[in-house]
């Protein structure tokens, strides 16, 4: 089997030698450079603009404002344009850092300098950016694409009445930003009314549809290319205005135009993980069984949209809770549109998993035992069985690897010299897939080699590599005879690289198209030559040969069959929608805290996960490590801060927004159950990328409690909260 091997990434060599061309690296002849001028007020109207200085600056070709920007159609939110308005179409300003002018010059430096010369006057109103001050204006938005925002199961009041123990807790999580190492970039090239865009995007599909709608041109007139991404984490899943504005000015100027967002621009040009306030009420019996749970999440939305992505799956799906009320509310603030960010469910899971730890202490039960007693044997959403679920094994193996049985549960009981030691655990869980299937073309050439194409993306997760492995396995070819190509919207349309959906949606497509292509190859092989007359069931494929299962020496190469055939075999298809998977795991964290200064250091993390079948142990382990590091930042150091008077982000840079550094990251012990999920059409693999960040956040916070006896329900847990 090629699937399962810890194969190094196929694009690794190109990446470390600089041969991988990212969106902004593509050399486009005659390209002009654009730079954005951003609003410095959060709410109001532009009353005057003076572009004379900028227009007179060296190298400037044009300066666009709302007065002269071409009129554009606002794309529908169905293809990821969530903002519901395009800037520079009117004098209205809806948030700080909204584009109010766009300068185009011969060089980037000239554009950047001229941008500082654009003068904009505003009629500004005082903005509101504090969520706690608008909680009484919060409302439940109508159901979105992810289902209802208010859900009741059973009878919460009755469940609370049955409870012997009742807990109430309020949590607060701050704004987070994705901060991929590569900021968003667009290069737009027009040829008549045909548009080609080099774009750093997690969704060729969304970008293509949105551009087509914005300019009113047929879909087939738009080609989007995105062969490599320097990360996205959700920032590049939706379509944001800068992409459309760049294409608009390129069309007007009849010249290719390139725009790269500055780091600060990404903070308001992409979305962000919204600030939340969460309240939980939980009732349980003394035996640990939860009788009722109410979980109300209130988060920020902007003035212009109320897009609400479901983040409450942990509340609804993770445990067998008979009486449940789950509510997702939103409140408007004068901030940019929020959107999804890696592991959206981590926000609610954090609150839930910390509250379960409180329950364990309340009942004097082991935290694992509390979770086992509420284990969801079937999907609580619909009562149907899971495809597969090995969460109990994850708890058991994780506890062994961590040494959980040696834990003294009393807070503050474990020490290492002067340092307080804390051990905490939590369940990891995230939905995966449940999205439309992704189109795939498999071509078996007369040279016996396969080319597999899909308009999907590799956001750094290993899509090139894993899809090559699936195709090689299904087609019976060595990996070096398979070329997997992505990042070009001329290929069959694929779903966004998000929602842990790439393996389920593209993997199933590669599997299905590969299977069809092999069937056709076998039909040819059994019609003539060494395998003539054999029933298809007796023929297998491996290492570039088709052979008789009963007499493996009786064989013929793919190449010989195809050469005899004289033309390639090509199969294009889109598989059925991938089922919604649920990849779970158990995570454990150890912290060391200096009681004098309150500083928390994570000294050990153990994670055991059930991702279905492991397609590539190396890339999957990288996902798990990355998720754990994200969890360290989420729990201990990351937060976007907004100036209350102006609603302007004050730390829109990597100096003020603290992602973990190497010294913050301990050894991370990762293992997998590695058993196929029969419900998966991707060789038993489930989507997994977003699971491993969940769990770890609460495991760290629960470890902090174990070390100190302090329950810190506001993130991040900076040292001042532990003094």
């Amino acid at each position, binding site marked *: 089997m090629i699937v399962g091997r810890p194969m190094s990434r196929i694009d690794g060599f190109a990446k470390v030698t600089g041969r991988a061309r990212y969106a902004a690296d593509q050399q486009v002849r005659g390209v002009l450079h654009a730079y954005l001028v951003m609003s410095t007020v959060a709410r109001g109207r532009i009353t005057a603009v003076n572009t004379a200085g900028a227009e007179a600056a060296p190298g400037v070709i044009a300066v666009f404002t709302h007065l002269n920007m071409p009129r554009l159609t606002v794309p529908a939110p169905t293809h990821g344009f969530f903002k519901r308005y395009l800037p520079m179409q009117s004098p209205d300003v809806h948030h*700080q850092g909204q584009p109010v002018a766009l300068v185009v010059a011969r060089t980037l430096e000239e554009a950047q*300098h001229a941008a500082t010369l654009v003068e904009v006057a505003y009629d500004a109103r005082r903005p509101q950016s504090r969520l706690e001050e608008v909680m009484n204006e919060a409302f439940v938005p109508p159901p979105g694409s992810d289902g209802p925002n208010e859900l009741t199961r059973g009878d919460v009041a009755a469940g609370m009445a049955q409870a012997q123990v009742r807990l109430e807790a309020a949590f607060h999580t701050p704004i987070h930003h994705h901060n991929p190492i590569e900021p968003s970039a667009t290069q737009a090239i027009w040829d008549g009314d045909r548009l080609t865009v080099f774009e750093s995007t997690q969704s060729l599909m969304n970008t293509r549809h949105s551009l087509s709608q914005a300019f009113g041109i047929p879909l087939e007139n738009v080609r989007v290319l995105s062969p490599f991404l320097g990360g996205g984490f959700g920032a590049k899943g939706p379509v944001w205005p800068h992409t459309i504005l760049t294409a608009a000015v390129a069309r007007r100027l009849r010249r290719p135009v390139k725009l790269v967002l500055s780091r600060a621009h990404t903070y308001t040009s992409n979305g962000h993980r919204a600030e939340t306030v969460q309240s939980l009420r939980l009732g349980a019996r003394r035996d640990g069984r939860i009788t009722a749970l109410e979980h109300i999440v209130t988060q920020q939305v902007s003035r212009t949209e109320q897009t609400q992505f479901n983040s409450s799956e942990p509340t609804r799906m993770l445990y067998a809770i008979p009486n449940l009320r789950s509510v997702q509310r939103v409140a408007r603030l004068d901030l940019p549109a929020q959107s999804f960010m890696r592991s959206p469910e981590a926000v609610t899971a954090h609150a839930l998993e910390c509250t379960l730890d409180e329950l364990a202490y309340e009942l004097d039960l082991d935290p694992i035992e509390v979770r086992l007693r509420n284990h969801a044997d079937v999907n609580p959403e619909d009562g149907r069985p899971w495809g597969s679920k090995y969460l109990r094994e994850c708890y058991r193996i994780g506890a062994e690897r961590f040494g959980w049985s040696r834990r003294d549960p009393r807070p503050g009981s474990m020490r290492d010299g002067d340092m307080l030691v804390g051990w905490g655990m939590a369940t990891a869980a995230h939905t995966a897939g449940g999205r439309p299937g992704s189109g795939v073309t498999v071509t078996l050439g007369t040279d016996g080699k396969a080319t597999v194409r899909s308009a999907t993306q590799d956001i750094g997760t290993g899509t090139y590599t894993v899809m090559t492995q699936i195709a090689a396995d299904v087609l019976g070819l060595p990996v070096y005879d398979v070329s997997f190509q992505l990042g070009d919207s001329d290929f069959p349309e694929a779903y966004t690289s998000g929602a842990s959906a790439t393996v389920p949606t593209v993997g199933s497509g590669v599997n299905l198209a590969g299977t069809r292509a092999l069937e056709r190859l076998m039909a040819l092989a059994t019609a003539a030559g060494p395998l003539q007359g054999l029933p298809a069931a007796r023929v297998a494929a491996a290492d570039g040969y088709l052979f008789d299962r009963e007499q493996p020496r009786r064989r013929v190469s793919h190449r010989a069959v195809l050469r005899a055939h004289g033309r390639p075999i090509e199969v294009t298809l889109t598989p059925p929608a991938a089922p919604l998977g649920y990849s779970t795991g158990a995570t454990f964290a150890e912290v060391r805290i*200096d009681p004098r200064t309150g500083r928390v250091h994570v000294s050990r993390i153990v994670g055991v996960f059930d991702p279905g079948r492991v397609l590539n142990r190396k890339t999957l382990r990288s996902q798990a490590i990355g998720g754990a590091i994200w969890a360290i930042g989420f729990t201990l150091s990351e937060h976007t801060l*907004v100036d*209350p008077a*102006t609603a*302007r982000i004050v730390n829109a840079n990597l100096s003020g927004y603290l992602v*973990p550094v190497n010294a913050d990251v301990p050894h991370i012990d990762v293992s997998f159950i590695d058993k196929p999920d029969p419900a998966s059409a991707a060789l038993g693999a489930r989507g997994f990328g977003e699971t491993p960040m969940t769990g770890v956040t609460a495991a760290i916070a629960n470890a902090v409690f174990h070390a100190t006896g302090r329950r810190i329900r506001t993130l991040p847990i900076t040292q001042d909260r532990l003094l």
Partner: protein
Amino acid sequence: MKLFDYVRATSTGDAVSAGGDYIAGGTDLLNLMKDGVEAPDRVVDINALPLGGISLDAGVLRIGALARMAEVAAHPAVRHRLPVISQALLDSASPQIRNMASISGNLLQRTRCWYFRDTAFACHKRRPGSGCPAQDGQNRWHAILGGSDRCIAVHASDLAVALTALEATVVTHRRRIPISEFYLLPEGTPERENVLESGELITGIEVPVTTLASRSRYLKLRDRATFEFAVVSVAAAVRLRGGEVDDVRLAFGGVAPRPWRSPEAEAALKGGPLTDERIRAAGQALVRDARPREHNAFKVELVQRALAQILGGFR
């Protein structure tokens, strides 16, 4: 970034007469220029001046203005005779920055106050008279001591805190300035951060090498393990005789617009043993005049704890 003239000076005289902003490692100035916070007409590159080197002579350590942070931190005499300098440098920035950044530039780096570093905000330091949004804004990182209604930004250099504890002298092409007189408090003129006059060039730093200096340490507390500025830091040098504090110097970072020496805290420790009670009294003396804002009140407690932790190591 605005267009500017670039001049490469080869002698101190040329550099001074060139009339521009000096650049050495450029690790701070370039960022400030890119962000439009600084916009010099002329940048004078002083890297070719003969101002490097580290030497120990007659009880004085001389650090050339152009010595790099990494070089100074690794120097054997610094590590053994003046450990607080080495520790403060190694706790600063990242290896890449320490390889580039000069010692004199480190002393002159501008504050990390985000209101100062974002030209969309008012800031008295950047645009005198415009305002100070930090007073009622996101001020978790701001000063609790020595601030004014016009500025509560903190000084960012760890090295300057160590040098303050060691009573170093800043040497310019014109004069010698004790470091205690080098930095200015903001009061009504936060745009003036030090006593250097226009065009005055730092040529080196001198640090007395004493037995007290050899018993010096640095403690830095911050929100992640490395590559981050101090929330609170302490440089301490303590000499004990017969179990009693014979001499002590304390300087603090992250709490004030300049490195903060506390004679009151030192006085509370001198002449007695390093007991918890006396350490507590020293901490209380340090923060007696603290004026915290909405988000930084914790620093009042944290800086006392940091002091207790570092002094505990001298017992």
